[in-house]
């Protein structure tokens, strides 16, 4: 199954989802998804950055919300 080739491509005007035949066939063992690693790594970094940013939105941009007042309460007590 994994070694089968793509079906022959039909005419370009066939509309969306038209598939060109591969320039080269890459099998399971020769494929190393480094680009995926790079992209997902980037996404992860963005998530972490946004997460930090959220700290400022939550605690500095606004008055304390529920969490803030509970923490404040604990500190007073």
């Amino acid at each position: 199954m994994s070694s089968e080739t793509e079906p022959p491509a039909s005419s370009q005007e066939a509309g969306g989802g038209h598939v060109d035949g591969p320039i080269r066939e890459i099998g399971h063992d020769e494929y190393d998804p480094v680009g995926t690693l790079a992209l997902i790594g980037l996404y992860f970094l963005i998530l972490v950055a946004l997460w930090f940013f959220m700290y400022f939105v939550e605690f500095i941009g606004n008055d304390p919300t529920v969490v803030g007042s509970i923490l404040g309460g604990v500190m007073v007590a």
Partner: protein
Amino acid sequence: MTSNETPYLEQFPGEAKLVKAAFWSSFISLAIGALFGVIQVLHRTDVLRFIDSADYYTVLTIHGVLLVISFTIFFLVGLFTWAITTSLDRPLPSLRFSWGWYGMMVAGMLASAFSMFAGFIDSIDVSASVLFTFYAPLQAHPLYYIGLVTFVVGTWVAGFDWIRTWWGWKQDNPDERIPLPTFMVLTTMIMWYIATLGVAVALLAFILPWSLGLVDSINPTLTRTLFWFFGHPVVYFWLMPAYMMWYIMLPKVAGGKLFSDPLARVVFVLFLVLSVPTGIHHQYLDPGIAEGFKFIAMTNTMFLLLPSFLTAFTVVASMEHGARQRGGTGYLGWLKALPWRDPVFTGMALAGMMFAAAGFSGMINAGMNINYLVHNTFWVVGHFHLTVGTGVALTFMAVSYWFMPQLTGKRLWNRTVALVQVLLWFVGMTLMSNAMHRGGLLGIPRRTAEPQYDGFEFEAGVGSVAELDAQIVIGGILLGLSTALFLAVMIGTVLGPRDDSLPGNNYAETLSGPEDAPLVLDNLKLWTIIAIILVIFAYTLPLLSIISRGGLFGFETGGLPLSISLLGSTIAATFGELLPAAGSVTAPLETAATTLTGIVR
């Protein structure tokens, strides 16, 4: 699967008609829903108000129901019918039967739609302006609930239809692995059966009798909790068909193969097991549910990140495979080798990207404490227009450019317009959803016709409310345009000429196939049982405590302490019978029952 030269229409002409009908029901809902979305945008921002603000909830109810119930689910039933027949290479057992469930769904949706639209007309004493969440004490005409129930029962029958098609196939192919698309349909439907039990009980046992006047009151916390029992997994019901397309279509149109069939199976099993016992995360701010239960729901929710990340990895790796087969190189340079001129590819890829962005706002929503910051604000609306409103909706539109020719034998009209359409949606949604998120952080509420208040201004740290409103209006209008273009392409295709050179009805092959997947993954009985056990764990105690505090039918009618002590002792007794040896287990249960009764008294 084998590569196949015939389009779907020639393979399964009868089924193609059914799928086409389901898609058109979906598209009509999209058209009306999107129109109402634009009306909401203009009204909220006070750019153009031509409806009475008192009718805003009617508009919003129609927008919600038509888009997230009708548009998504009609598309799903069409897609799943295609997936079952294509991957099993087998027709449905009886087309008459299948048109039966489709007819039920249409009848149900028409009944609900009638009751919603009647809200605009004062002379008809019917209305259903209760939003798609129908929280008590908002009450709709019984027809609204009856319609929804009929629609859902229609999906149950559809599920049965697909399952029996698979049974038939299994008789003939006892030793074969379940083909991946069928596996996805089956796991999704099992999840759906479990999930819809919640809403069925909420509607049939409580809300419908109450709206018919058979009982005087109900317990709103109870019906809300039953709603969200269904309300979280329903988002996976929208999402799973989109995921299916990302797993089995996107790799193909990217010119590659699915990276891993076993990983895809793991993801669908995880969704089956984990999607129901998380519903309480929509109720972080509901009084009357103990924090501990909310914490458990939060924990389960965080586990759900796992299948989402697995999906991100598998789908991106499959695209990268395609790109490298097309000659792409480098760490990020391969992205250029992807077929960005193909609307099917580009629509799905942008939808996936938007969905990934929604991962961030979803993480914020999911955190119990930080949820307080955004709950019921415009942020949430921004979030789900990225998930269901783009991740799902844009994927559906994009794949329609592949499906419509397959279903009609017609040539796609017109590839360029289609490409513009998906790009417009992306741009429009970027503007609208970004501004909604930011507006939510300022505290701008959702579900509000006129979020402008005398003597009070929302303070924007960056930019201004006027700037946010402008983004929302421009975004909303672009989205409206994009929807119109989509419909134009669909209509143009159907009316256009036949195409004799259509590609065959194929989906992606795999790099690592089912032969690499552990057999236990296909043990659907096992996963169903685990899913049910998790649901029981997550919901028994919260439901008991909600009933004990508020009564099954609220305080007026219930004879409350009685119903609780009855319930408590029934449960203790049942467990006692089930586990005669485990006296040690029943004792604490009885104590729990007494405590519950105690709290009430």
